[in-house]
């Protein structure tokens, strides 16, 4: 891939509502054709950021460039971008066809041209053709998603913004739509900027992910980078259940864990690391028969086990805290609850993070 000029640039973008700083000094380049996802908990400012990019909110400070043109003051209806809203914001008094063709009607295109484009878009998002005259209020949740997608695609925008459109959808359908959305990104070749509070959802779909916390973009990277090298405790815990141990840098390159009064072997240390957390993913934890089987070990007792389909998760209580171990079903631990167990890991499977 050629590194062309980014399609969308944010420079020190800031938005304040009264005293509240919703978006704080965000600088980010988004490449043409990229699927970029901004992930953060509710209240992290991700929706405000997206609304500024779409032109629905004006920045307090900083700049937005669309293909090198400053668009801070350009209103939403003059930007070549389109948004899929969280509520979808379908026009309930209109039919599926009228919803999809709305932007074309605003442009003054003929009825026939609109219908032709509308039907071809319905084909793209896999809506049956006879839905054209159906009222959107009579569509199911998944069908409404497809209508919203087709409506956003109709004006052939340069960038599509998504404001958590899948958050209100049940699990199975959401998984299906995630895959469809990623496929749609491939077939259309458009730039997608997506926001969600679910890192899992972001992992499935994105080329790159940006993590937001309290208005700041704290880490940007590929799903792999974020997964393997979280920058801080917030990012590492945001990814789901992990084991974190409060540690300090010890002598001879090891790390000391006061809670267990033990020295562990250390993965690569961030520059100037003094104290922070050792993060070990549940799937990197192993049950040991003998301490020598892993670089580090902890003694505990098996508290409970949970079948997760293809995997089994175990909670092991040790030193007053609970550790999570996850194994494939075929490698399940053969024993019973309250067994004394040894769990361990190697330094290469752990990460050091700061607060």
């Amino acid at each position: 891939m050629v590194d062309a000029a980014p399609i969308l640039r944010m420079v020190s973008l800031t938005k304040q509502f009264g005293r509240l700083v919703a978006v704080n000094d965000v600088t980010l380049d988004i490449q043409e054709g990229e699927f970029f996802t901004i992930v953060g908990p509710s209240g992290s400012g991700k929706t405000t950021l997206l609304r500024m990019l779409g032109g629905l909110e004006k920045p307090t400070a900083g700049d937005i460039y669309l293909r090198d043109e400053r668009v801070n003051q350009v209103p939403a209806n003059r930007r070549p971008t389109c948004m899929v809203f969280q509520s979808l914001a379908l026009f309930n008094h209109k039919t599926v066809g009228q919803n999809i063709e709305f932007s074309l009607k605003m442009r003054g295109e003929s009825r026939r041209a609109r219908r032709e484009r509308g039907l071809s878009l319905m084909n793209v998002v896999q809506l049956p053709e006879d839905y054209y005259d159906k009222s959107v209020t009579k569509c199911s949740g998944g069908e409404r998603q497809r209508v919203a997608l087709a409506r956003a695609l109709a004006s052939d925008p340069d960038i599509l913004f998504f404001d958590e459109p899948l958050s209100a959808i049940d699990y199975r359908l959401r998984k299906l739509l995630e895959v469809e959305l990623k496929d749609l990104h491939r077939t259309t070749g458009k730039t997608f900027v997506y926001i969600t509070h679910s890192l899992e959802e972001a992992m499935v779909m994105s080329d790159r992910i940006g993590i937001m916390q309290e208005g700041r973009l704290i880490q940007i990277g590929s799903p792999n980078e974020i997964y393997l090298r979280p920058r801080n405790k917030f990012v590492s815990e945001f990814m789901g259940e992990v084991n974190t141990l409060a540690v300090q840098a010890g002598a001879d390159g090891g790390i000391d864990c006061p809670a267990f009064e033990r020295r562990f072997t250390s993965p690569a240390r961030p520059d100037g690391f003094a104290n922070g957390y050792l993060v070990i993913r549940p799937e990197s934890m192993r049950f040991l028969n003998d301490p020598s089987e892993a670089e580090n070990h902890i003694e505990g007792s098996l508290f409970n086990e949970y079948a997760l389909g293809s995997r089994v998760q175990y909670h092991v209580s040790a030193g007053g805290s609970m550790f999570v171990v996850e194994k494939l079903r075929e490698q399940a631990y053969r024993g019973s609850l309250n067994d004394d167990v040894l769990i361990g890991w190697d330094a290469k499977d752990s990460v050091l993070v700061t607060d």
Partner: protein
Amino acid sequence: MESKRWVIWLIAVWTGVIALFLYIPIFSVITSSFGKSRYFRFPVKAWSDKWYDQTLGANLTTDLHLTSFYVAGCVALIAVVLGFFGALAFARYNWRGRQFYQRLIMLPIFFPQAVLGLALLLWFTYVGVLPSWEAAVFAHLVWIVPIVTLVISIQVYGFDAAQEEAAYDLGASRWQAFREVTLPALAPGLFSGALFAFLLSWGNFPLSTFTTGADSTVTEWLYTKMGSGYTPMIPTMGALSVFGAIVILFGGYMFLIVQRRRRLERGD
């Protein structure tokens, strides 16, 4: 099974009794308009259509209905426009002082109408407005606009404001978004608001009696006649209103059906 049938039977009787209580008075008015007698009688013994001849033949009838129609028509039109913007301020936008506004707008509804009518008459005299049906329109508006505002507000509360944003985002101007999205989405509320306004104005007596001056609405005439000398033209006028309403409702329904059929044909 046994008890279920019993319950259904009870519900049927209850519904029947309520319907009877509601409709017997109206029914009795209509039958007595077809009576021969000079007095209000139920049940009617001798039938005649002479009161209809008299009522329909009188210029008075036309004048009264025209006045009522002008007043109610103007009130409905102005009340819906004011009520629409009032409802947007009431339910759509968040602004400093909104709560105060929401309370303030309710006050005229709770004010006794007879007193309100007198107060308005005094006020009209003070500013030099002569009592007439036009003055009555303003008097009605004072009381009806708040009600219409509330009726439309209910529709506004159910409107997802993101739809407007979506319209802008899809390239619509403010005006296009209003015409294509906001207005059609709120249309059912505007329709019921207009209907409320028209009916409340049509049936209003206390405000009209103080403010119409030399003009007289149907309602005013009915009240006056009942006080000063009953004539069977009173039930006849009432019955005519009912027939008129039936014709309008049925006609409107037919119109909607024809429209829908035409739209479907155009769609194919």
